[in-house]
C-alpha cells in the first residue's frame, strides 16, 4: 500500500507529462531535421545541425521581430504596472466619495471582450496614424482592470497601522506609495509584470491588424509569415522559428512559475 500509491502517482505524472510536453519536444526535434528526413517520416533527427535556424533568420528579419516583441512587451508590462498600481492605490488608500462605484465600473470592464471594441480601436489607430507604430502596440493595453484588481487585493492586506504609522511620521502619500506599498507588495508586482509580458509577447490578432510591414511587426506575426511561406516542405525552418519564439517566454515562465501561480491564485480568489 505504501509503495503502491507513489508508484501509481509517478506513473501518471510521467505519462501525462510526456503527452503535455510532446508538442514542444516534437517541434524541437523537427527543427533539426532536413526536408528529406521529414518526408521519410522520421522522429529523431540524424544529427543536430543548426541549418534550419540559420535559414529562419535569413528568410525573415527575425532578430528585428524579436527585438520588436521584446520592446513592446517590456513597455506594456511597465505601463500596466504603473497605471494599475496608481489606480489600485487610490482604491485602497484614498477614502474618496464614490470609491465603490468607481471600483465597480473598473471591474465591470473585465466583462467587455476586447474583440468587441477592436473595430473602432483599429479606426482610431488609423486616424492617429499609428499604424506600423510602437504606440499602437503598447498604449491601448496599459490600462487593465485585472491588474488593478490584482494589486488592490494585495494592497488591502497591508495592515492599516503601516499607513497610520507613516501618517503620524508625516510621510506624503506618494512617498508612502513608493517606500512602503511597492516593496510590501513586490510579489504581486512580479506576478502582474510576468503576466503582462507573457500576454503581450503572445498577442496575435492586434499586431496582425496594426502592422503591415517589417518595421514594428512582432515575432508572432513573423511566425505566421514563416509558416505561410514555407508551407511546402521546409517544416524544419518553421519549427526552428517556433523554438526561437517560445524560448524567451518559456524561460520567463520557468523562472517565475511559483510566483505566478501564487500571485494569480491570490488575485483570482480574494
Amino acid at each position, binding site marked *: 500500500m505504501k509503495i503502491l500509491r507513489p508508484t501509481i502517482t509517478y506513473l501518471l505524472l510521467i505519462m501525462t507529462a510526456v503527452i503535455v510536453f510532446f508538442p514542444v519536444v516534437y517541434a524541437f526535434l523537427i527543427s533539426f531535421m532536413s526536408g528529406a528526413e521529414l518526408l521519410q517520416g522520421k522522429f529523431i533527427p540524424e544529427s543536430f545541425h543548426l541549418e534550419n535556424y540559420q535559414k529562419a533568420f535569413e528568410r525573415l528579419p527575425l532578430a528585428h521581430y524579436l527585438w520588436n516583441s521584446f520592446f513592446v512587451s517590456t513597455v506594456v508590462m511597465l505601463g500596466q504596472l504603473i497605471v494599475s498600481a496608481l489606480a489600485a492605490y487610490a482604491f485602497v488608500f484614498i477614502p*474618496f466619495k464614490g470609491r465603490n462605484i468607481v471600483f465597480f465600473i473598473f471591474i465591470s470592464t473585465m466583462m*467587455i471582450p476586447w474583440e468587441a471594441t477592436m473595430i473602432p480601436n483599429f479606426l482610431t489607430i488609423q486616424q492617429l496614424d499609428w499604424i506600423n507604430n510602437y504606440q499602437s502596440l503598447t498604449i491601448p493595453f496599459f490600462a487593465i482592470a485585472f491588474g488593478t484588481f490584482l494589486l488592490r487585493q494585495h494592497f488591502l492586506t497591508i495592515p492599516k497601522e503601516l499607513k497610520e504609522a507613516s501618517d503620524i511620521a508625516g510621510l506624503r502619500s506618494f512617498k508612502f506609495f513608493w517606500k512602503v506599498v511597492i516593496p510590501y507588495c513586490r510579489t504581486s508586482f512580479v506576478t502582474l509584470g510576468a503576466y503582462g509580458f507573457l500576454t503581450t509577447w503572445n498577442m496575435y490578432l492586434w499586431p496582425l491588424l496594426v502592422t503591415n510591414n517589417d518595421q514594428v511587426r512582432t515575432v508572432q506575426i513573423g511566425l*505566421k509569415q514563416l509558416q505561410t511561406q514555407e508551407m511546402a516542405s521546409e517544416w524544419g525552418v518553421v519549427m526552428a522559428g517556433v523554438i526561437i519564439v517560445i524560448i524567451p517566454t518559456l524561460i520567463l515562465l520557468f523562472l517565475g512559475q511559483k510566483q505566478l501561480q501564487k500571485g494569480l491564485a491570490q488575485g483570482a480568489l480574494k
Partner: protein
Amino acid sequence: MKSTAELQEKSVTKIDTKWRFIYWRSAILYLLPSIILFSVFLFYPLGKTLYLSFFLTDQQGNANVFVGLENYQYILQAESFHKSIKATILFVLYTVPTGVIISLFLALLANEKIKGVGIFRTIYSSTMGISVAASAVVWLFIFHPSMGILNQLITSIGGTSIDWLLHPNWALVSVSVTTIWMNIGFSFLIILGGLQNIDDHLYESARISGASYFYQLRRITIPMLSPTLFFVITVSLINAFQTFGQVDILTQGGPSESTNLIVYSIYREAFVNYQFGTASAQSIFLFICILIVTILQFKFGERKVHYQ
C-alpha cells in the same frame, strides 16, 4: 454658549469639505491614467461599435447610411452567422469542460507531496508560455495529412489516415484539441494555487478519521476548491468565445465555415470584406453573449461555490 457651539460645528463641516476635496483631487490624479485609457480604448469604442452596428459603412469605416436594426436582422438571418454561432457553441462545449477536468486532474497529481514533483509542475504549466501562433503552428504539423505524427501513428497500426483539418467534422475537434492543450498551463497553475491554499489540517483530520482518497477529494478538495474552479471555468468560457489565432493559422475558418468562430467571423467581416456595420453588429452580439454568460455564471455558479 450656543454661539460657540454653532461656530464649532461650522468649522467642522468646513474642514470636512476641504478634506473631501483633497481626497477627490488626489484620487482623480491617481485614477486619471486608467480613466483616460479606458475611455479612449474601451468605453468610446464600445459605444462606437454600437453606433456602427446601426449603419452601412464605407471602406474607411465611416458611417454612411443609417439602417436601424437591419444589420442585426441580416446577421441573424445569414446562414454563415448561424454556422458561426453553432461552431462557437460546439467549440465552448468541446473545450471548457474537458480543459478544466484535465487541468484539475493534472493539478491533483502535481499537488502530491513526492520528490521531483516540481519538474512536473513546470512541464504542465509550460503551455502558458507558448504563444497562440507557436502552438497553432506546431499542431498544424501534428495534424499534417501525411507527415504529421498523428496520421503516421494511425497508419502504422493499420488505420486509414484522417483529414484532421480538411474534413468539416474533424476540423473543429482539431482546433479544440489545440485550444485545450494551450489553456492547460494557465488553468493548471490557478487550480494548483487553489489546492495549495487548502489548509493541511483538514486533510490531517480526515486521515485520522480514516477517510479514503476519493472521499477526501469529494468532501474536502472539491468543495474547498470551488471558488478556484468557478474562476477557471469563467475565464475558460470567456477565452473560448474570444478564440482567434488558432483558427487563423489552422483552418482560416474552413472547411465550409465549420470553424468560423465568432471572433474570426468578425475579423473576416470587418477586415477582409470591409463590412464594418455587420461586423459591429456581430461584435455587439459577442459582447452580449459574454455578458450573459458572466452574469449567469455569477448568479447560478456563485451559489454552489463554497468560500472559506
